[in-house]
């Protein structure tokens, strides 16, 4: 799908006016942790051994998944029990193979956090997007909202939870790096501060002309993600979605912050006005009637 331009907004006075002022946006400040922790995955270094996948399962005590025929082969997609995954891409007409490590992107402006009605998904100071199972009501709006299809559901359970990569928040709190990064035998997964990892990625591109696609995936996508990628083949051929630098949360949060109260207030005022007008017309010259008619208007505005 093409990147959506906000040209469409030229039709909406209110929305356009609000979105025009980029800086005066409270919704923007709330999720930005541009220098939290991050991981840089370099698929030119990856050998596809899936040690990261195993380490993730071990640390998080996630059971292996049996494929068709009951064989415990490697899973092909993220699931409630598989939070990270090595996938292999071979673009059509090319002899090159390329690896891709999948897991939660830990967006700087996470759609899932913005979507969750009960705050079950939250972003920590370090940039990890984490889940509070006690709050979750199982509406699955996070699954629908996530541009990367990361949150998964325990479909076999009677009372299922959402499950996804936690950035190994329980290891981070103890000063350890995420299990996948710690397990990688070839240093394909670097863990560190986001700014320094971006600098490192830029160095690798600069010092190895022709080796990498000149793009750090995740640096700007959707306002930035904590997972950063370097690749030797174009990212769309790896299966990563082509995304703009505008956070998907922005429009939604601006409309929620300003649109909702404005709609409530203006509808209440309009109704009050109409009611006042009509009642007054009926009451004619009777002053008492006109006085009483003003009350519902005031009450409605307060309620909104």
């Amino acid at each position, binding site marked *: *799908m093409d990147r*959506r*331009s*906000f040209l*469409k907004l*030229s*039709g*909406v006075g209110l929305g356009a006016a609000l979105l025009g002022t980029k800086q005066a946006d409270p*919704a923007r400040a*709330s999720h930005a942790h541009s220098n939290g922790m991050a991981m840089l995955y370099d698929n030119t270094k990856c050998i596809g051994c899936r040690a990261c996948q195993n380490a993730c399962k071990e640390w998080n005590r996630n059971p292996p998944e049996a494929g068709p025929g009951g064989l415990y082969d490697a899973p092909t997609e993220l*699931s*409630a029990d598989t939070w990270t995954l090595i996938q292999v891409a071979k673009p059509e007409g090319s002899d090159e193979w390329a690896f891709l490590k999948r897991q939660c992107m830990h967006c700087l402006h996470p759609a899932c956090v*913005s*979507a*969750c*009605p*009960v*705050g079950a998904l939250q972003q920590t100071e370090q940039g990890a997007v984490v889940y509070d199972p006690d*709050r*979750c*009501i*199982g*509406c*699955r*709006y996070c*699954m*629908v909202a996530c*541009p990367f*299809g990361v949150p*998964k559901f*325990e*479909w*076999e*359970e*009677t*009372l*299922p939870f959402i499950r996804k990569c936690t950035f190994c928040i329980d290891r981070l709190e103890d000063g350890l790096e995420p299990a996948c990064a710690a397990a990688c035998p070839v240093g394909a997964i670097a863990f560190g501060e986001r700014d320094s990892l971006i600098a490192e990625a830029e160095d690798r591109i600069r010092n190895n002309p022709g080796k990498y696609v000149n793009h750090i995936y995740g640096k700007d996508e959707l306002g930035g993600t904590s997972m950063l990628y370097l690749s030797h083949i174009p990212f769309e051929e790896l299966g990563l979605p082509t*995304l703009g630098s505008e956070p*998907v*949360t922005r*429009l*939604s*949060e601006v*409309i*929620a*912050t300003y*649109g*909702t109260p404005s*709609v409530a207030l203006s*509808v*209440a005022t309009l*109704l*009050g006005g*109409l*009611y006042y007008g*009509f009642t007054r017309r009926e009451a004619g010259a009777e002053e008492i009637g006109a006085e009483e008619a003003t009350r*519902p208007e005031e*009450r*409605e505005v307060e*309620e909104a």
Partner: protein
Amino acid sequence: MITTKEGRLSVGYLILVALAVIGLTVGILRFVNGLGATTNLSDDYPWGLWIVYDVFFIPVSAGAFMISAVTHIYNREEYHTIARPVVLAGFLGYLFVVVILLMDLGRWHKFYNILIPMYWNLHSFMFEVSMCVTIYTGILIMEVAPAILERLKWQNLLGMIRPLTVLIAGAGIVLSSLHQSSLGSLFLLMPYKLHPLWWTPLLPLMFFTAAAFGGLSMAIFVAVVSFRAFRRRLELGLLTDLAKIVSIMLGIYLVLKVGDLLLAGELGLVLSEGWLSLLFLAEMVIGVIVPIILFGTPKMRESSSGLFWGAACVLVGLAINRTSVPLLALKATGGAVYFPHWMEFTVAAACVAAGVLLFDLAVRFLPVFPEPETEAV
């Protein structure tokens, strides 16, 4: 419609009862066995038929707030004759939306988390939708209450509610406006997933407009069908006025839809997207253009069959739209396909059946329709 003249049960009635009973049983299975066992939902399609049910029946039930706006705010007394059946239908519509919503919640036993202020995420349109559904259902109960209280002859309570009628109606309209538009706002987060024929920053406005004409069309539909079924004389003039309003709203909607695509330079998508283009065109033709013609022609909107078919077309168009946005035009993460499980269909059908049955019961035991000899309204 449901009972014969002699009061014996008709076949239709038995089918509705059977559907409701089967649905209830399947509903119990869903709570015992979980969503995975009773639906075809998956990680690729986390939302399915039940979400479609909700986003369709919420605007359909908007007839209640549109009619109560006209009766109370404009103080148009003549609309009181259809206000009660329409508000009743709206209430039943919401009641079963709540039932389906609970069914659809994976962790339904925690639904009360939405009411805990320290959990509230004010950025979430799912939060706004949930709050509005909860409060508005309460308001509809208060709007339906006078009919029940009149029947029970509880004059005291009735006397307490009466003066609040206008306030209740006003609050209902404010909540509905928020709620219908926030249903569209749910999809603002998905510019990369919802097809550009449907994704636009104007989604809340589109959904609100659709609720306004969809709700009024349902009001027309309920009035024509129920007055005919229960053999009441119906003043067509009222409905003709409503139909005229609907045709204007449909015109606005058409301008919004086409103008939005035109401004975004995406009008070509109307033809280039294969079956998605067809889906879009089907909604525009069946749900917008045909009813504009039907309701725009005085001769058509003055006849009960013209009113019936016009309203039916609008509702079909709305159904197409509300199947497209949360399901058909929303890109799935994997390559899987989704077709609802028979249990999903059964539960949805049972809710519709139970709604019709309860409407029938209410009409027979409560003063819903005006009696010719007395002033029941």
